[in-house]
Structures are given as structure tokens and as C-alpha cells.
């Protein structure tokens, strides 16, 4: 029986760097250690990976950052408004492409779900989270295996 390694933060960061660079035309620098990365009002995109490894990826950022990401993806100027459905769609698509890269790196017969987006504060500080910088703001990306989901109240 083939076993698959769980995606680690280095793998996910490599996927994010690729997506940031080719779709958003920005660098995905690591968030500086010791600098607070919490926010109260944000968006969280989620997508499931199924197969040899089962779990999901979560991308959480402040609402204003989500709007900036959508603007960059859509080629909309910083002073032009972006509709909320377009912001949700854009953030979901960014995570979809990150998820596709991660799934491909895991290898084997895997399936990727469809992305979803919901309102969310930043992850609890106790949760392990990869944090990258978007124009000086934190973007959290979490790798959540099913076992952790089952124990998550």
C-alpha cells in the first residue's frame, strides 16, 4: 500500500510563492517573527484534498487584504471598488490554485474539492499556521488533517 506524506509548511509556502508571483505579481515573504498577525474581521477560504492524504487547506486574511488580493488578481486599480462576490471568488480561486499545486506535489491519486469562503477572524494563536506577508499584512495558511477536524469543536 502506498503511503503519502502530509503536506508540510515548506511545500505549501512554495505553492504560495508560485501563485503570488504568477497570479498576483507580488512576493510572498514570511511574516516577521514576533509581530502580531491577528485580526478580527476577515475572510477564510477553504478547500478539501482527498486521497492518500485527507484534510483541507485554509487561507485567512483581513477583509481589506482580501479586497486587495482580488484587485491584484483581477487587474483592478487600488482606487477602484471590487464587489464582495468577486472578492470571495478571487480569494477562493487563489486557494484553489495553491491547493492544486500542493495536491500535485503530494502525488498519487488525489482529488481536490471546490473552494468555499466564509467570514472568519484570524486563527487562534495556539494553532499552527504558516503566515506570509501581503503588502505588509498577514495572510494565514493552515494545513488541517482530517484527524484534527474530527477533534475540532
Amino acid at each position, binding site marked *: 500500500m502506498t503511503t503519502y506524506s502530509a503536506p508540510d509548511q515548506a511545500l505549501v509556502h512554495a505553492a504560495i510563492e*508560485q*501563485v503570488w508571483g*504568477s*497570479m498576483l505579481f507580488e512576493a510572498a515573504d514570511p511574516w516577521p517573527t514576533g509581530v502580531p498577525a491577528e485580526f478580527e474581521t476577515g475572510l477564510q477560504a477553504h478547500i478539501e484534498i482527498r486521497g492518500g492524504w485527507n484534510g483541507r487547506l485554509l487561507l485567512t486574511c483581513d477583509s481589506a487584504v482580501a479586497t486587495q488580493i*482580488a484587485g491584484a*488578481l*483581477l*487587474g483592478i486599480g487600488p482606487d477602484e471598488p471590487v464587489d464582495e*462576490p*468577486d472578492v470571495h*471568488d*478571487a480569494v*477562493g*480561486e487563489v486557494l*484553489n*490554485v495553491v*491547493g*492544486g*499545486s500542493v*495536491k*500535485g506535489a503530494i*502525488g498519487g*491519486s*488525489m482529488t*481536490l*474539492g*471546490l473552494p468555499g469562503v466564509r467570514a472568519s477572524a484570524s486563527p487562534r494563536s495556539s494553532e499552527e499556521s504558516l503566515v506570509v506577508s501581503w503588502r505588509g499584512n498577514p495572510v494565514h495558511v493552515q494545513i488541517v488533517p482530517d484527524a484534527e477536524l474530527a477533534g475540532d469543536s
Partner: protein
Amino acid sequence: MRALIVDDSRAMRRIVGRILVDAGFEILEAGDGQEALDVLAAHDGDLPVLACVDWNMPVMDGLTFITEVRKRAAWRAITLMMVTTESEQDRIVRALAAGAHEYLIKPFTGDALVEKLDLLGLTPTTVGDLV
């Protein structure tokens, strides 16, 4: 000449659409495979020359859409290009076996898409008087 973009993400349809408009295409859009079949049926007399098709979509996925297009003789001239996050070799083989002519993995650059158009003979310089 027309291109049909089939993707459940409006953002991705806009990104692909912008590149194709710059390459001289008029754009048709659909959010899933079934909607794309309906769009083709509605444009039976003036079909797109190209369809860029995502794999993972609700209602009808891209692989099923390509299979359905290939069943119809009247739609055989449409060039089909998968544009998807699915990067595994077996997925590429399945798409090509179903009738896709080209395969582009997300994330991609505008130049990569234009290169694919060149390979397919679908850029203004290669299509000539079709533009």
C-alpha cells in the same frame, strides 16, 4: 473569432478573457460544463474556434464537457484546451484521451497561454484572415 471560457471562477474567466481579448478573440463565458454545452447549442451557427476548460466545476466537470463536445460531429472543429490546477500525469493523459488538444496548468502566465495559442495555430499571426 470567438473563444469560450468555461470556469466556475469569475476571476479566472476574467483573467483568461483578458489575455484572449488581447490575442484578438471575442469571448463567450460559462460557469460549468452544462452551461457551456448550452452556450454552444445557442451559437451553433457561429461556434467558437477555441474553448478553455477548467476541470473541477460544479454541475458538470470539464472532462465530461470535453467528452460531450467530442460526441457531436458539428462541434469537432472546436479546439479544446484544459486550463486547470490538475497537474498529475494521469489527469493530462485522461484529458487528451477524451479529446483535449492542449493542457495548461494553473498557475500560468499570460505568455504561457499565448504560447499554447501559437502551438494550436490560434493567434492572429497564425490564423491570418480568420481574425
